């Protein structure tokens, strides 16, 4: 009993640097350098790993009750940014350790070289797509995931509205043997559409994910809000 009192006292002394919060989790707001979009994520579990002027990459490290698992790939990867600047799904899935899960996993097919790809950085399956139209981009990537990577549609293309009233579309695809890809697309007006793609070993059609993505804002809605 007295040990509990002493422990509580020592923890309180050690917790003098504690910060007030409504939650155990801390909400972090990220805004791209070019102010093309902003989003909120909560940490833990999300951690920012890579940031460019036009995109951001978040991960959830593999842990069990707070203990990290050595050499294990992250359980969740999120890449957000304009479709002409962010990485494609082939890169995301490869980084999830997709190729190390077993012998039955199909290899990611090589994408043939297309003239001009190096200069633009746009994935080949988007070369003939109107990048400013978020629906066209979503449909092109859904077709790529299902036809090229052998994915199965878990949730078809549906509408999605953010808290700021910004309309978008979303789908979810399952790729054997248990990698889920869920991608959100938002219209930014004149420029390329905004894409927030998430790949995970877990089902992504969750309330947590929906609430997090409802706080995404493109530059267009940010401008409207500032006005």
């Amino acid at each position, binding site marked *: 009993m007295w040990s509990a009192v002493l422990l509580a006292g020592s923890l*309180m002394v050690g917790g003098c640097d504690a910060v007030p919060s409504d939650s*155990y989790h*801390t909400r972090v707001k990220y805004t791209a350098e070019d102010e093309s979009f902003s989003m909120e994520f*909560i940490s833990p579990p999300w951690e920012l790993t890579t940031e460019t002027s036009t995109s951001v990459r978040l991960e959830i490290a593999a842990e*069990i*009750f707070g203990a990290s698992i050595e050499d294990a790939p992250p359980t969740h990867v999120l890449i957000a940014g304009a479709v002409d600047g962010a990485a494609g799904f082939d890169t995301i899935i490869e980084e999830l350790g997709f190729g190390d899960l077993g012998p039955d996993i199909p290899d990611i097919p090589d994408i043939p070289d297309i003239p001009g790809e190096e200069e633009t950085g746009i994935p080949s399956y988007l070369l003939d797509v109107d990048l400013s139209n978020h629906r066209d981009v979503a449909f092109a990537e859904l077709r790529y995931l299902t036809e090229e990577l052998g994915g199965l549609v878990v949730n078809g293309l549906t509408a999605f509205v953010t808290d700021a009233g910004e309309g978008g579309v979303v789908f979810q695809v399952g790729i054997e043997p248990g990698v889920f890809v869920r991608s959100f697309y938002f219209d930014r007006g004149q420029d390329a559409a905004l894409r927030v793609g998430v790949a*995970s070993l877990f089902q992504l059609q969750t*309330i*947590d994910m929906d609430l997090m993505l409802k706080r995404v804002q493109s530059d267009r809605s940010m401008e409207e809000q500032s006005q």
Partner: protein
Amino acid sequence: MSVVASAMSLLLWLGPPVLPPKQGAREPAPEPPARAAGAPERAPVDTEVDLPREFQDPATLAETPNAESDTAVVVIAPDEPPAIGLVGDPRPDRAAALQGATGPGVLEYETLTAVRTAEPAQPSGKLTFQRGTPPPVKSAMLVIGYRQFAMRDGLGRDQTWHLVGLEIAPVRRYVRFALHTEVGVEGGEAATGGDRADLMVLQKVGLGVQYPYWVTPFVEAQVGVGAARIELFERNDLAAIYTVGLDAGVQWALLKHLYFVGSVGWIRPYFAATGRTVYSDQVTFRVGIGF
């Protein structure tokens, strides 16, 4: 020698000293005249006895029709202890005494009249006073309680913690010292959606003051440690928790060993994990049953 002899002679001549009677002392009763041997026992004689109404002369009754008739009569003979006779006394000697008898005509009886002054005893009614159970001198030793406080999760949803606790109070007179063990599960908007169910376990100690009575008010400060399993985005985190708080409430003694416990207070849970610590000030309430 001749002087002493003279004094002695004088004392013998004077006799023993006669002291005045003390105030309030009882005069010795005069000795009754000795009855001569073989003399017949004297019978009561006719005297002025205040006879009961039944034995009075009809002519006298006609003069005083409303006179009381239940006067008690005491006839005392010098040779006998006082005897009280009432109207209708069936004993022949008493009746004879009342009616008068022939005999030597010497009035040797004195008559006392007793008047009833006391009210007749009323029949005993229902008892209106009963000694009750004394108030408790200690509060409940064991309390099974339910506590609730609310927070918000990382996504802004209402997160209500429902905790079931066991309280053991080894010191519970005017100073209370209690051990609280509480186990909680998350409720609220997030849990209702079936998205997750966080868990919490706490061990707390409380120190406070109280006034034990039928309704025992108390104030208690609490500190505790524990752990929480928190799930978000399908990942389980383990956070250390330590809490401080203050409870104020009452314990109501419903029966001798059955209490209702209610309190409200403030709780500040600290969550420590992944190198950072956050806290939140919340209002909490608790209800329970004590034994």
